[in-house]
Each structure stands twice: as structure tokens, then as C-alpha cells.
């Protein structure tokens, strides 16, 4: 069984640009979660999508947004990039049967110059 996949593995952008990160959940998983792991700030919850809807949002500004597609894959969009957005962005997924257990992908490392 394939795990959570994320693309790209690395992304380099400049300040003010937009970044799009992609995530494919484990087959059969309907919920997707996004976390930011920035140096000095630890792991912080960003967003939770389930059945195409945003269900919960962490303490991040509106320029962090996303969506979930009918096949349950997800995109995270970060607009008007700032230097402090440089981080590892982790996607996780969970199934209906085991909603509380999240399985993580390898992450996308975003560098904002």
C-alpha cells in the first residue's frame, strides 16, 4: 500500500510569489491535514480537509489556503510569500475507520528567498 505522497520535494520561491504544494493521501483515506515545521517554531497545524470541505484551520493568515479534490488529493497554496514561510510542509491523511491516527508524507521543503 502506497503511503502519503507529496510534490514537489523542494520548492524555491522569492518573496511575494505564490507557492502550490500537492498531497495525495493513502488510498481509502478521506481526510487530509497540513502542518508547517519551521525552524524554531516546531510543528504547527495548518488545515484539515475532509470530503472536499475545510473542517478546521490553525492560527495562520488567510494567505494560507487550500482545497481538496474529489479524489481526496489536496493542494496547499501560500500567497504573497514571506521569508518566514520557509519551512518543511507536511501532509498527513487519515481514514474514516481510524480518524484520530494521521499518517504523514515526506514533506515539501519550501525556501523563500
Amino acid at each position, binding site marked *: 500500500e502506497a503511503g502519503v505522497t507529496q510534490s514537489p520535494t523542494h520548492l524555491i520561491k522569492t518573496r511575494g510569489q505564490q507557492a502550490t504544494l500537492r498531497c495525495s493521501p493513502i488510498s481509502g483515506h478521506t*481526510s487530509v491535514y497540513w502542518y508547517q515545521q519551521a525552524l524554531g517554531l516546531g*510543528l504547527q*497545524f495548518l488545515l484539515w480537509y475532509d470530503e472536499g470541505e475545510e*473542517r478546521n484551520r490553525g492560527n495562520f493568515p488567510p494567505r494560507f489556503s487550500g482545497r481538496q479534490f474529489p479524489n481526496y488529493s489536496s493542494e496547499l497554496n501560500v500567497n504573497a510569500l514571506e521569508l518566514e514561510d520557509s519551512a*518543511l510542509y507536511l501532509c498527513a491523511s*487519515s481514514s474514516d475507520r481510524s480518524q*484520530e491516527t494521521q499518517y*504523514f508524507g515526506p514533506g515539501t521543503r519550501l525556501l523563500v528567498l
Partner: protein
Amino acid sequence: AQTVTQSQPEMSVQEAETVTLSCTYDTSENNYYLFWYKQPPSRQMILVIRQEAYKQQNATENRFSVNFQKAAKSFSLKISDSQLGDTAMYFCAFMKPSAISSGSARQLTFGSGTQLTVLP
């Protein structure tokens, strides 16, 4: 709001020995979930073990076991017969069940991590 504290930023252990990583948390909830994840140098976050607060029995997964003390709000991870591949950053995490509160539903709250190095 929930908080998770890992007071040991770094630890080391000799191969084949046993090590215990500490975690404490603060919550007013009675039912919740606790997790240990490991993040090796590859940066992939891997689930190690999970504990439901309503279960008194401590969870075990092969060489990994927990000591869950609900009254003390303590959730330590014991690694037996440590192997070189256990070298990683270990994160303790807390989650409220989604049925109870929508304010932080399905949101994992992580501790700051403990870097464990297994020495040959």
C-alpha cells in the same frame, strides 16, 4: 488550549540498551489521544505508538512501549534493545477526539521534540 512538553532536547543511548523519553501534557479534557512520532534524518514523520486516554492499559508496539499516567498527565516512551535505526527526533503529540470539540478538531499538538542518538 492544550500544551505538550518534552523537557529533554537531546538524549543518547548505547545500542541494545533501553532508553525512556519523557512527555507531559496539559488538558482539561477527560478523553483524548496521545501519540509518539519519530522523524529520522529523512524528515519522514513516522507513527511509533498511539494511546487512547480511556484505556488504562499501556500501549506496546514491539520494542516500543509507553507509560501512561493519566492523573499525572505523563506519557513517556520506552525503547528497548535500541538499534542504530532508532536514531531520530521523537515527538510527543496530543489530540482531542473530533466528536467532542470542533474548535481544535483533528489537530495534533506536538511537543518540541527529543533528539535521540543511538551509539554503536
